[in-house]
């Protein structure tokens, strides 16, 4: 199971990259990157997963004393939380840029924004 999830995560990253490399539309590139981000998150969570264990939340079934043998690794989860929020921040920023670029040139084609080169 964990390998499936991890493989899916990797594939999502590759799909995202492929989308970003082949779509010239700015918005589609951003969409592609958000898919890649999801893939990364999936991979991270898979790495923290221990088969047959539960979420790292203490309650009556998972007591503090038994936690070490019952819960999965909480660290990747904490990291993913951070990563997701950072991801949305960047996505928002890219969207704002795309909007502005569109306003300047009335196009979303990335190949049209090549005034700076060489």
């Amino acid at each position, binding site marked *: 199971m964990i390998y499936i999830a991890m493989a899916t995560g990797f594939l999502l990253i590759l799909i995202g990259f492929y989308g*970003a490399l082949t779509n010239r539309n700015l918005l589609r*590139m951003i969409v592609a*990157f958000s898919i890649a981000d999801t893939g990364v998150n999936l991979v991270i969570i898979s*790495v923290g997963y221990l088969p047959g264990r539960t979420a790292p939340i203490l309650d009556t079934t998972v007591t503090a004393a038994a936690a070490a043998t019952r819960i999965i690794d909480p660290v990747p989860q904490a*990291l993913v939380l951070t990563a997701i929020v950072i991801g949305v921040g960047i996505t928002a*920023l890219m969207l704002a840029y795309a909007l502005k670029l569109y306003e300047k040139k009335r196009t979303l084609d990335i190949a049209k*924004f090549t005034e700076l*080169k*060489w």
Partner: protein
Amino acid sequence: MVSAIYILIAALGAAFFLGFLKDGMRATAFAVTLAALVFMNFVSAGWLWSFAVDAAAPVEILTAGFSPPFAINLRMGLTEASLTLLVSLSGLLSALYLKDVLLALGRRSMAVLLIAVMALCGIILTRDTFNLFVFFELASIATAGLVLLSEDERALSAGFKYMIVAQAISVFLLIGIIFSYHATGTLNIDGMADASTELKTGASIAFFLMFIAVVAELKPFPANGWALDIYESAHPAFSAIFSAASGAAFLYAADKLLHIGGAAWFPLATGIGIITFVAANLLALPQSNDRRLLGYSSIAQTGLVLAVLGQQDILGDRYLFVAGGLLLAHSIAKAGLYWLSGLIAGRALPDWAALRSRPLLIFAFIVFIAMLSGLPPFPGFYAKWELARLLAGDGRIALLALILFGALLEAGYLFRWFGYILKREQPAQPVVCTPHKLAPVIAAVAAGWALGYLWGDLSGHANLLLTVPLLFALSFLLLEWLPAWIKNTLAIAGMLAFFVLTYAEYDPLRLIFAVIILIGGPVIFLASYHEHGRRLGFYPAAMLMFAGLALLIRTGDSFGFFAAWELLTVGSYFLILRGKHSEPHALSYIVFSLGGAFLILAGFALAAQGAAQYDLASLGLLTQPLAPWVFMLLAIGFMTKTAAIGLHIWLPGAHGEAETDVSPMVSGILLKAGLFGLFVLLMSMGKQQLYGIELTHVLLWIGALSALLGNLMAIFEEDAKRLLAYSSIGQMGYAVFGLALMNHLGWLMALMFVINHYIYKSMLFLSAGGVAKRTGTRDMYRMGGLITLMPLSFIATLIGIIAVSGVPPLSGFGGRWIFYNAILTSDARLPMVVLFFAGPIAFLYLFRLIHTVFLGQLKDEHRKLKEAPFWIILPQMIFVVLLLVFAVVPGLALRRVDIYLNQFFPEGGLNWAGTTISSNYGYWNPVAIMIAVAVIFGSLFAWLLFVNRKAQKVKQFNIVFAGERPYRPETTHFAWNFFAPYRKALGFMVQPFVTRFWEGLTNLLHVAADLSRRLYNGNGQSYAFHFIAFVVVVHFLWTGV
């Protein structure tokens, strides 16, 4: 001590606090921003002080009250403190610089700036990989935001391109971090470093991904198109941060990762770094936009430091000294240059000519490019020296060669740019100079000098900024406001005083050089009295050159020698650049000279074999197989200065175009530095063989060919000063030949040439310069008949050419006589033949010089000319006297040296009995010759005077001209293409093959650069391609290797 966490807290708190302020309170917001930045600087500086001065131990800062790896910890140590100071200082200065923009855009922009600086500090301080990622993201988002401070609308697309790449980078970074975590069970950097056995193998993909992501932020070639676009379009103040602070922070992050990965990954860092360094410098060559050019240079420098990071295994405890020196020099210089670029209206490189209205800013520019090029006395110089020493000591020659090649390219385009500033037309728009924009530039200059002092102190060698000659030269910077004649007097007095004080310390050989430099220099300086006004820039440059020369002959170790060599190179470059049309020539001069200097550096480094101190005298202890290579590197290096054939193309232009009093300095004195180097080299190393070839024999050929071709080229030259310059190539060829003979008389002959060449070439250059000053041209065919108007200049030239040609009774003959005696013992017959051929050719150009200028038909427009100015004539007359004295009593200078040379060649010295000088083969009595010639000449002259006492001078056109009289001097003065038949017969020998070779090489580099930079097609998607391709290819190569 204030905890380092307050650096982060202050920035964040201020950024958040700005939200409370109403939009109208922008000035308050700006004040808050500055206050926060000042506080950050204060904290960093405080720590730096306690580490550097009180030698405190590094401090761990625990967050959340738990110890690592369970909570994030920060570390403050010496490196961190210096880097955070660098980052926050560049942030503060840029904020100051950005005052107008920030006030216009409001508090949000200030918050972004604060967070950018905070994030960079965070990258430096944190010891946790994931925390590093968070700060990375903060830094890159802030970068994307700060790009928008620019007025350039293209910045928008640049920011977007960056974010595309940043997204891809963060994917790799996260994957790398999580798998590294999986492998080690910790996110802490030190924890990973301790725990990782897997990551240290060099095969770990997890570490590779993490590392390559960090490296990608360092803009490695070719995945760096986005960075260039940012550099080109962003506000210069941001580019300053981006180049100086971001680069430093990301480099330190890479260093931390290397701490995890260990030595197995060092080659990867070095490989990427050095390729980036060379490629970026190459691609910078065809750049015309100033900021983009600086961007390329930034990328290159970052690559260099990355390469150094990968060399920490051999740098040992000098690692921080080297990497820090390079990094700080780059950061400060680049920040300064970007700040400067904000003062310039135009974006093309020649637009920087606007700086000419502000000498202070020109000085700032010089300081910055000197720092970037690693010239003394700045930190990059010391770092380069150490780096070369350690690399060569460990046999990493290829890397050293690449570094030096890249550095040469960089120096090339930087100095080309400087040439534009001084020589191109000033644009209409003036430099915008407001105090808040000027202050950062000046701060950068001050920081550069301060670090130069510090690095000199730490270098383990003599601190260059404490050497008397250099201080004396630099003091002229402060005296620039004085009129030229006062400065001239000071210069002369200073040099003479230095000679008097140090007189006792020279051995006879060095004494000759010392006299030429420290006495001969002031004689030429007499000519400088004719200049009026303040003559800005002349004295610091000239004194820098003389300081370098003085240091050169006094130093005993390789470091001091190399430092002096660079100083005199730079000083003379500035001097040469002063000439009216000398821009391209000064450039080729500095490029050849620095190329030569790098060879010398490599040679010394190779010779030292890692030793920190290396005496010049120890060169003699070297053995095969190293010795011949060292010999070759040093010899070629020195011969760039003597302008040996093949390396000579800079000389004619440089000497020809220089100012009247500069030409004799750079010709009569500067060229001797190369000869001095060869003396030192041959004295200690003697004969060396490489693959069975006697290297001194190769030198013989080079000397002979230089003599022949230099003379040949001189005879076809129409420009008087260039003619003299070509002649110098020939004369230096003789001297090199003499040295390479490796016998007593050969060396004596070389010394004879050193002395003679100084006297007569200085004299001839002054004479030609004086004439050119009066006539307004240097083309000889435009002159003619000046003998009556400028008799003293004529006499100087006459005596000069007799001396140069070697005709008795003047001193040139002495050189020739020693030459013939010297070669009698040598077996190298063929190069001798070449030299025999060269000899008579000298007559051709010498005659042409005196004939077409002083004899023949006077031109109408010259009829009212006066003699050259008194101060230009005076040294010439001194030289005339000197020549005559030296002709009669050469023993005055040579006798002591002759004895001194006995320790190297006990055989074959001269006998100095009475007035006769004799060798094993022949004899020569200068006094008798002089008397005999004078008596014969005098009596004939007297008789002719008596016979023709009533002769009257006839009118100019009273000549027998096929029954008619010409009335136009232009048609009657046979001058242009004077040796046409000679050209018909032997012109093929002066085809500019060498020039074409070097031009071809330059063009090749430019074309290659121009083609390859098309890689950066401006498309953000292509940049993403580049990045991913970079990762794949590097991985492929890395695992393949």
